[in-house]
């Protein structure tokens, strides 16, 4: 019975894959001349860098993941330093806006409650 359930689930998965659109982790940018696509990973790295510079943090304290419809920025502040979320949000939003994506994505900032020591 368990085997049957597993097989049925695999079948449902295949069926879903056949009907749904493919996902490649890329999105289109506006361009006058050519078709232009950019990897989500590259967008995430750019947002991370912008936020990191805006908050004056060390590399590795900001990590961004770009999902289908948003960019999630995780910030790991230095212990004892308070970060202004408005500054971080503005930096992330500015970077996303500067990309001129065909369909823009909102950027969300999550500041970790535990700080990093000695950065």
């Amino acid at each position, binding site marked *: *019975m368990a*085997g*049957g*359930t*597993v*097989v*049925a*689930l*695999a*079948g*449902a*998965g*295949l*069926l*879903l*894959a*056949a*009907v749904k659109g493919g996902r490649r982790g*890329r999105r289109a*940018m506006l*361009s*006058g*001349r*050519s*078709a*232009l*696509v*950019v*990897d989500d*990973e*590259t*967008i995430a*790295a*750019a947002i*991370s*860098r*912008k936020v990191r*510079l805006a908050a004056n943090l060390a*590399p590795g304290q900001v990590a961004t993941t770009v999902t289908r419809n948003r960019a999630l920025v995780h910030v790991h502040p230095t212990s004892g330093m308070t970060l202004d979320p408005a500054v971080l949000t503005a930096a992330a939003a500015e*970077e996303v806006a*500067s*990309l*001129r994506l065909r369909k823009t994505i909102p950027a969300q900032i999550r500041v970790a409650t535990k700080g990093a020591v000695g950065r």
Partner: protein
Amino acid sequence: MNSTNRAMNRLLLATAGLVLLAAGLLAAGAGLVPAVREQWNAVATGLLERWQALLPTAPAPEPLGSWWSLALPALLLLGAAASIFWLTRQGGGRTGTAASEQDPESGDTAVDVSYLAAAVDEALKGNRAVVGSSLTAWRGRTKRNTAPALRLTLQARKGASPREVADLAEDLVGAIDALLGHHPTVLVRIGSGVRTKLARAHRAG
């Protein structure tokens, strides 16, 4: 731009999904519902009897017993071969010619894509935002439009602004247009590759 038959692939995927789903539901049902189990038993017994009745209709030398017992694995093997054939038919369409022109007087001209790729490489030398590039040409997909299309892939440095790289790509495409004398279809992909991981991240500043 390649010969992948998307509709057919989706259809095969959906069929495989339906078959698996039905088989799984049936197996799970046989475990749970007694009525399904009895029905399954009856059908399976019937099929087995018919198979055993079929065997003597094509007798074969002893270790085999019947040609029918050879036909079954042969059929599966044929299916596997068809799948492999289908697999090799996917993709393709890449060509080495970036552009070509036929002229009855001055003859045929073809531009190799490696020439353009070298030009792009040269133009990107010393650029901070881009760590690697590749330019490939692909045959037109439709019968009407057989002119090759180009795909330019730029590997951005980790942290580089994609818009900055995009503007650079726009300049490169403009330069390619100027070199070829016409406007081919171009797909630009800004991504990350092995070189992105190996190269150092953008310095602050």
